[in-house]
């Protein structure tokens, strides 16, 4: 079952939305070994699912490479991708995504049946996996008759049908209470001990202790620690660029700045021009989002830079 290391190198995914270029993944690199649990940690929109899609051969990245053992995943095309997903990857989806008309047993067997395995063989494998996830007595229940945790365990079992070396789980505990989540976490730990590599995307900190490797999808910024300070810029000078990490909030003391968004074709759109006593850049640090626009000095400008906490206490509460 083991296949060798997973190496993600300088992965970039860029797409255009409403005319703007979005980069959910921008130069991401990490490596993991068989038998490891890799936790992709980050808030919604940080590119976790995009990364899972790339790892699973569902999405082709804009640049960079993914290697799984000897396989160059990013070089696989067309029907080869279906075969890659079928043979090498097991998927567990946040929404469980069980087929409502099929029993738990049939849901597990279906990918095997559709890829040409015999009915008896597929159902026997499903029984084996149901036993492995502790649901041997629920095989003939349809998803509607199972709890969320049981459905997720069936979904995990389905992902293991072809005995893949890499299991990709998207927010597997997101819709579960703590008891059900614990059962899933224990199940994932058990699967790792079989030598399988498991990549889990989550914003659930409960998964952190079981991780062998944590990939921070949106690096935590200790902006609170930065002291308040003055910034001066000459006309035309840039304060920060769209996509930069967000750490500070700025209040204009004198002069004017332009808020600019970079479009997909590389051109720029001026969103606003701000002057003295106006502030900007607060949402990024508050929400842990990257900068959504660039800021450039229109004239010579003097700014006061605050950490989000200080800005909230001293400036925001006054307004």
């Amino acid at each position, binding site marked *: 079952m083991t296949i060798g290391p997973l190496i993600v190198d300088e992965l970039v995914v860029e797409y255009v939305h409403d005319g703007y270029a979005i980069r959910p993944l921008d130069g991401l690199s990490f490596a993991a070994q068989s038998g490891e649990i890799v936790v992709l940690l980050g808030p919604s929109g940080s590119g976790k*699912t995009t990364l*899972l*899609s790339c790892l*699973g051969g*569902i*999405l082709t990245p804009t640049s960079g490479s993914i290697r799984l053992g000897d396989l160059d995943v990013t070089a696989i095309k067309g*029907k080869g991708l*279906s*075969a*890659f*997903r*079928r*043979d090498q*990857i*097991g*998927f567990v*989806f*946040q*929404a*469980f*995504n*069980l*087929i*409502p*008309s*099929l029993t738990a047993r*049939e849901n597990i067997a*279906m*990918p095997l*049946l*559709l*890829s040409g395995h015999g*009915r008896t063989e597929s159902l026997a494998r499903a029984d084996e996996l149901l036993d492995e996830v502790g649901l041997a007595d629920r095989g003939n229940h349809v*998803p509607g008759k199972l709890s*969320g945790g049981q*459905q997720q365990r069936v979904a995990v079992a*389905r*992902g293991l*049908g*072809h005995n893949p070396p890499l299991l990709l789980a*998207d927010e597997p505990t*997101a*819709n579960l209470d703590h008891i059900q989540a614990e059962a899933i976490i224990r199940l994932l730990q058990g699967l790792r001990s079989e030598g399988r590599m498991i990549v889990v995307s989550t914003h659930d900190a409960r998964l952190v202790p079981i991780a062998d490797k944590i990939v921070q999808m949106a690096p935590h910024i200790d902006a609170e620690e930065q002291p308040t300070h003055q910034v001066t810029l000459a006309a035309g000078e840039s304060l920060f660029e769209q996509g930069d990490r967000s750490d500070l909030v700025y209040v204009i003391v004198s002069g004017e700045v332009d808020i600019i968004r970079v479009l997909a074709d590389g051109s720029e759109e001026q969103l606003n021009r701000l002057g003295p006593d106006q502030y900007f850049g607060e949402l990024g640090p508050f929400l842990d989002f990257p900068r959504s626009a660039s800021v450039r000095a229109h004239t010579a400008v003097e700014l006061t830079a605050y950490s989000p906490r200080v800005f909230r206490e001293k400036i925001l509460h006054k307004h």
Partner: protein
Amino acid sequence: MILLTFRDLIYRRTRFLVVTLLAAVVFALLFVMTGLVEQFHREPFDTVEAFDASAWIVPEGISGPFTASSTMPSATMAEVDADVTAAVVTSRSSLSDGDDTSEVILVGHTPGSLGTPQTVNGRPAEGPGELVADTSLGLEVDQTATVAGVDFIVVGESQDTTLLAGVPVVFMTLSDAQDLVFRTNEVVSALLVDGEVRALPPGTVALTPDAVAEDVLEPLEGAIGAVDLVRALLWVVAAIIIGAIVYLSALERQRDFAVLKAVGSPNSSLIGSLALQAALVALVSVALAAVIQMFLAPAFPMKVRVPARVFWQLPLLAVLMALVAGAAGMRRVLKSDPAEAFSGAGA
């Protein structure tokens, strides 16, 4: 693939049942319309064949004995050099049995000669005042019926002797028909011959039975065309019904297909599942339709003659149509993005 198809059919059984019944009604109408068209086409050939003649002699310029006013002197018969020759009178008339009046085609024949009908009940007309009526008139032997104001006794019934889309033929002796139609025995409508025709009287032509039957079909071309158009429309309706259910199914199961694609299931299996569903709906509908048409057919004023070949042709065409109609749904499956499996909240 089969499991996926059947389980989904059971899961959405109410909808599939309603759609199957709807399609079955449409297919039943298709059976009936096909039976009507068949009857339109076969009726004149069967009836003309009942006259047992190898050729019909009519005056030049007359398209046929049943569609034009055909008259020729009775003496013309003596000029025909053929193995067997008999005179007939044909004319449109009306028949009343006391309660109802029906349009009929009157045929006068020489008893025992060409043109004498086979009876399924009673015997042929042999003497004055006797009549053989087609069974569709519902007359009984020994009953009195009035043709063109003259009373006749029904002595027999013939079957499948109708023309011009169900107009029944009544048979009587040649002299009775001549009296009714021409008021003289010196005129006939046509001459029937059997065997070799060695010489034709001047000013006459010999028509084959097929030519006579095709001539009878001419006035019905418009009606046949209309029924054919209705048949085509019924196919369109059936295609829309089945196409819509397949498309809806593909739409609702988009997430399922995305998930199955994500886990490596080939497109062919997923499309095959949907195609099988479409074919099954079509086949079950046609099977139900074959039963429904048996109850529908008697309600039609014309005989509905569904040919045996239709019972295998229609299911075959229905399956083909369902596959074509379901193509939009199948294309949707083909285009479904496995990445959709990642989207959305918990079920």
